[in-house]
């Protein structure tokens, strides 16, 4: 067998050692250790790799227990060898699972390794630690927070972090990223940990139980904050979150109550995404967001019943998703072009007669931006309300129609023309779409919508008895049906009768109606 290899030798590129080292840097621990079988010089090359990366999941087959012991001894031996040979470990990444049964001995190992890494002055120490049991069942070993360490990145999953876990806590000067997932933790414990980690830049709190308040005033380096909670359990109050805002660049919260202090200035905030915030967002209006480029609200009851003004002169993109129409306006922007995307899903039974009027107000306040409007209507039970809406729009002399780049309506076909009439009574869409044309036939509904729109738009002059519709289309100069292959931004004209041919082709096609309106 060696003969075969010798025959093939010197076929490959002759990569110098520093390049090989760079390649080896990116290999997983098992792949890099396996290179020791290649040749004697390779054996030496991997042995000195400055980054170590141990995942116990690599050892997780056959009988889990036996492999766990093997894993511990591989980590142990490797670290010992680096120590003995006085080699540097610049980066150390450990991903380990601890359970109740063998926690004591595992914790001893962990304690030893943490000490060794501190002695070796390892620059980057990333620890990911989880339990195989259900969340909150296994207590977190005190050793992690109990030893002075070079820990830079800590990721904890499923543990119960109690008083015992932090009884020996020491300051963690190097910790830059803390990620807690499905951890059971009380407010005081969280507070203690945070106050001992002044260098945190990234804080992720996902689905943690018992945590009621996150009050962060001393993390002067905090840049990115991510928070997720389980979907609301009825009657339970959401976690209240308060920040010292200056260093923050990203805030992403879902099912949490972010509290905005009156007049706060988020000097560095670039990205603000708020989902299902229940607390009133009234104070937003007095806050300043000089660097904000991306703003998203999704399903925020905290926007109901209030008028919000956003002072974000550099906004590039605004997104709203919800089942009611918010009242939001923006300060004059200096960023030039920006986009806004509105997704409103509603039930007709919840619609008041001023629904389209409110939507018109929202569109007007966004008219500086390129607007995409998406209206999704849940199953239909009452049509007269749309007519009432349209009447109200007419009665209010709503003659300033807002230009909308893209309008997309999704609803039951029977009410399609009603909703479209409603939308056209407040805005001037340049395009109506995008409706997808799939090459397989499971999704017929979009095709029906296209046919319906074709009928309304293309045959609008042929014997349309509806005076109101005639009024809406009075200024419509030209309509064309266009198609493009998804992901490619090249649209070309087509006709309804040509569409079946496209459906036979591979790939997903996007269709839209391009509308040209006479200036009025």
């Amino acid at each position: 067998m060696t003969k075969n290899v010798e025959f093939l030798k010197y076929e490959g590129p002759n990569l110098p050692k520093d390049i090989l080292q760079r390649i080896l840097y990116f290999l997983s621990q098992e792949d890099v250790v396996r290179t020791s079988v290649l040749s004697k010089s390779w054996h030496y090359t991997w042995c000195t790799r400055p980054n170590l990366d141990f995942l116990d999941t690599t050892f997780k087959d056959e009988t889990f227990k036996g492999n766990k012991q093997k894993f511990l001894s591989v980590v142990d031996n490797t670290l010992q060898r680096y120590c003995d040979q006085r080699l540097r470990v610049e980066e150390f990444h450990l991903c380990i699972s601890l359970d109740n049964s063998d926690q004591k001995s595992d914790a001893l190992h962990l304690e030893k390794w943490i000490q060794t890494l501190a002695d070796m002055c390892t620059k980057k120490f990333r620890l990911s630690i989880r339990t195989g049991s259900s969340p909150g069942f296994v207590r977190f070993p005190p050793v992690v927070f109990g030893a002075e360490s070079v820990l830079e990145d800590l990721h904890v999953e499923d543990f119960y972090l109690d008083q015992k876990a932090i009884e020996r806590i020491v300051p963690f000067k190097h910790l830059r990223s803390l990620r807690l997932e499905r951890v059971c933790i009380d407010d005081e414990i969280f507070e203690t940990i945070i106050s001992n980690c002044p260098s945190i830049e990234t804080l992720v709190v996902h689905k943690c139980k018992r945590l009621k308040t996150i009050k962060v005033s001393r993390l002067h380096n905090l840049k990115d904050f991510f928070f997720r909670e389980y979907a609301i359990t009825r009657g339970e109050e959401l976690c209240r979150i308060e920040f010292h805002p200056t260093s923050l660049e990203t805030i992403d919260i879902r099912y949490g109550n972010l509290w905005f202090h009156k007049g706060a200035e988020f000097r560095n905030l670039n990205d603000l995404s708020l989902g299902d915030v229940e607390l009133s967002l009234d104070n937003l209006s007095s806050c300043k967001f000089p660097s904000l480029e991306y703003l998203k609200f999704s399903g925020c009851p905290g926007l109901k019943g209030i008028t919000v003004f956003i002072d974000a002169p550099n906004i590039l993109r605004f997104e709203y998703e919800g089942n009611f129409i918010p009242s939001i306006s923006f300060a004059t922007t200096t960023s030039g072009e920006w986009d806004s995307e509105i997704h409103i899903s509603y039930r007709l039974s919840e619609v008041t007669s001023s629904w389209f009027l409110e939507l018109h107000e929202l569109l007007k306040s966004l008219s500086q931006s390129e607007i995409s409007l998406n209206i999704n209507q849940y199953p239909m039970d009452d049509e007269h309300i749309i007519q009432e809406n349209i009447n109200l729009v007419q009665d209010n002399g709503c003659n300033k129609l807002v230009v909308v780049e893209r309008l997309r309506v999704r609803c039951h076909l029977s009410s399609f023309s009603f909703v479209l009439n409603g939308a056209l009574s407040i805005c001037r869409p340049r395009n109506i779409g995008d409706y997808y044309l799939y090459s397989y036939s499971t999704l017929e509904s979009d095709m029906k919508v296209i046919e319906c729109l074709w009928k309304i738009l293309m045959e609008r002059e042929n014997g349309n008895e509806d005076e109101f519709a005639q009024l809406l289309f009075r200024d419509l100069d030209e309509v064309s049906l266009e198609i493009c292959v998804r992901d490619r931004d090249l649209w070309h004209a087509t006709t309804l009768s040509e569409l079946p041919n496209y459906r036979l082709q591979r790939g997903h096609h996007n269709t839209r109606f391009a509308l040209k309106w006479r200036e009025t």
Partner: protein
Amino acid sequence: MAAETGTPTTLTLKSNDDELFSVAESAAILSVTIRNMVEDGCAGGVIPLDNVDGKTLASVITYMNGISAIPADEEKKKSYRDKFLSDKDFETLADMVLAANYLNMSCLMDAVSAKIAQVMEKKSVGWVRRKFGIENDYTPEEEAAVKEEHKWTFEGVETDDDN
């Protein structure tokens, strides 16, 4: 290729097989090696790159133009790099990593190294030896012993006739 006239400064690069390429200076100076040559006043004439062949240089220039057209957005740059390297085979990647090293382009160097590492994932010992041109200097007994020592690393790894 004719040098473009007009506003942006264009450099002419010469590969070791005497192919000439013109490229915008702003894109070419992603290479620290080229940047140093420009600063030393070589930009007027042709910049000879003795360690890169034409085929590889063409590819590197495509990368230079592509990546310099993307504004300062690390995520977009990363996805461009991923896409750029996605269809390259091992031999091309090896040529590119050598070129990136010679041209001193650390981002490309890291991206190609990571890509090569990704390609090596779970590959058999024989495959790696063939691709890297590694001479096996172990005796069969020694090799068996090393293999036994690191048995845990062979879980789920491809096998081939050499093993």
